[in-house]
């Protein structure tokens, strides 16, 4: 029973492991998160990836004339996974920051939107060190919003970090946090417009800060020329109107920002 079955299993496993490597050179693998981040990326009930970033990536790949395929990776390990060559580029609303530039290279930005605080309508919360004293703020781990709140409000607020933005949203609905700090578009489209978000509103004004980087860019491994190719493609589709077409499907304003 043992030997022939053992060798068969070994052979199957070896084949399965190595077939991933053959012929993988002419395809660009893009890494994104399986957790939904509407309207930028989300997974519908049929399992298909949708969203502004997915369509934008398709357009960029068409412009660069390469075949692209998506690889899913959870957010908190996405940069190590890039370095481990599980994929070749990250398109997951990752902002260009100095901290990240130490470990990866970025293309030019492909959108830039401000951040907002969101809280329950029933409470008046003033966005200032005095007004936020003692409050609990939920952020997604390893984001520009987490860095911002750690730098600006450490010791004033209790910070709760979540593996996904969606779980942070769930806890705001449950009342475990008083406020969320995240991207304005993600929170308005993804949360405030949903039925559960009806009891919540934006607190204060949308804002940007140097701590929060220069907008979202495509992350590639250090020294990879792919980053420059993406930058060229972004400029090209900005120029020939493809960007605008996709943009207008999702937003009433130009999300490229300034």
């Amino acid at each position, binding site marked *: 029973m043992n030997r022939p079955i053992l060798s068969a299993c070994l052979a199957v496993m070896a084949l399965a492991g190595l077939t991933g490597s053959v012929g993988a050179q002419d395809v660009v693998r893009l890494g994104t998160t*399986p957790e939904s981040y509407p309207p930028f990326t989300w997974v519908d*009930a049929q399992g298909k990836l949708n969203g502004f970033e997915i369509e934008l990536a398709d357009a960029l790949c068409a412009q660069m004339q390469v075949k692209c395929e998506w690889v899913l990776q959870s957010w908190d390990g996405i940069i190590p996974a890039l370095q481990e060559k599980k994929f070749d580029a990250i398109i997951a609303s990752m902002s260009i920051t100095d901290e990240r530039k130490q470990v990866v290279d970025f293309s030019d930005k492909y959108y830039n939107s401000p951040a907002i605080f969101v809280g329950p309508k029933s409470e008046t919360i003033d966005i200032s060190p005095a007004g936020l004293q003692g409050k609990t703020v939920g952020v997604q781990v390893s984001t520009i919003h987490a860095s911002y709140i750690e730098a600006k409000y450490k010791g004033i607020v209790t910070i709760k970090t979540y593996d*996904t933005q969606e779980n942070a949203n769930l806890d705001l609905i449950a009342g475990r946090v008083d406020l969320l700090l995240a991207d304005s578009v993600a929170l308005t489209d993804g949360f405030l417009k949903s039925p559960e978000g009806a009891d919540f509103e934006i607190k204060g004004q949308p804002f940007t800060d140097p701590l929060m980087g220069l907008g979202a860019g495509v992350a590639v491994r250090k020294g990879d020329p792919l980053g420059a190719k993406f930058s060229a493609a972004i400029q090209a589709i900005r120029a020939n109107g493809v960007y605008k077409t996709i943009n207008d499907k999702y937003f009433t304003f130009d999300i490229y920002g300034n």
Partner: protein
Amino acid sequence: MEDLAALLGFGEKGWGGQLLAGALVTVEIAVASYLVGLLLGLLGAWAKLAGARPLRALGNAYTTIIRGVPDILIILLVYYGGTGALRALIGLVVPGVTVEIDAFAAAVASLGFVSGAYATEVFRGAILAVPPGQIEAAKSLALPPRVMFFRVVLPQAMRFALPALGNLWVVVLKDSALISVVGIRDLLGSAATAAATTRMPFTFYAVVALIFLLMTIVSVGLFQLAERAYGRGYRRS
């Protein structure tokens, strides 16, 4: 109740297809990891029983570390760090070949690594439980060591190993739920997406629990059948 059926079904708004696909991935990962674990277990048991001193030390270190460190930590370490080391190792042995280890293979490697340590202990205990008289008889017939192992020791050891191997399978099946933490779209991962999108976590996690429970019950039943088949010819002690 109709809403529930629509949500879990296979229609346009139904997440049933997604959950089923996720369940398939879970089973694939669990089976592959279990097989890898069995292989590592046999190697580990051999290292601990018949190997030279450095091999025995390696085997002991392997089992001690896995038994003392949480499974999720080992999985994260192997998944995010180990594949690089593995590629370097393969690069040493077969230079010039770049092996891309995709997410599935990395997950199987990490879970298999963990279950291999448990399997080592199972096989070691089972091999030690074979009556020494059998080994003496085999030696007295001048059977070469490999024949002795595969034809005399292992079949008898399997009888002792099977209950524990059944246990190990259930452990691997449940541990495969941890793989969702790295982002693989297994059963729990698909359910988490569905739960977040529909804002109904209890519903979807309850369904996941039910599916796992069913798989566990079926597995236990199958293993009991196997135990009965293997125990044929032996009186119940």
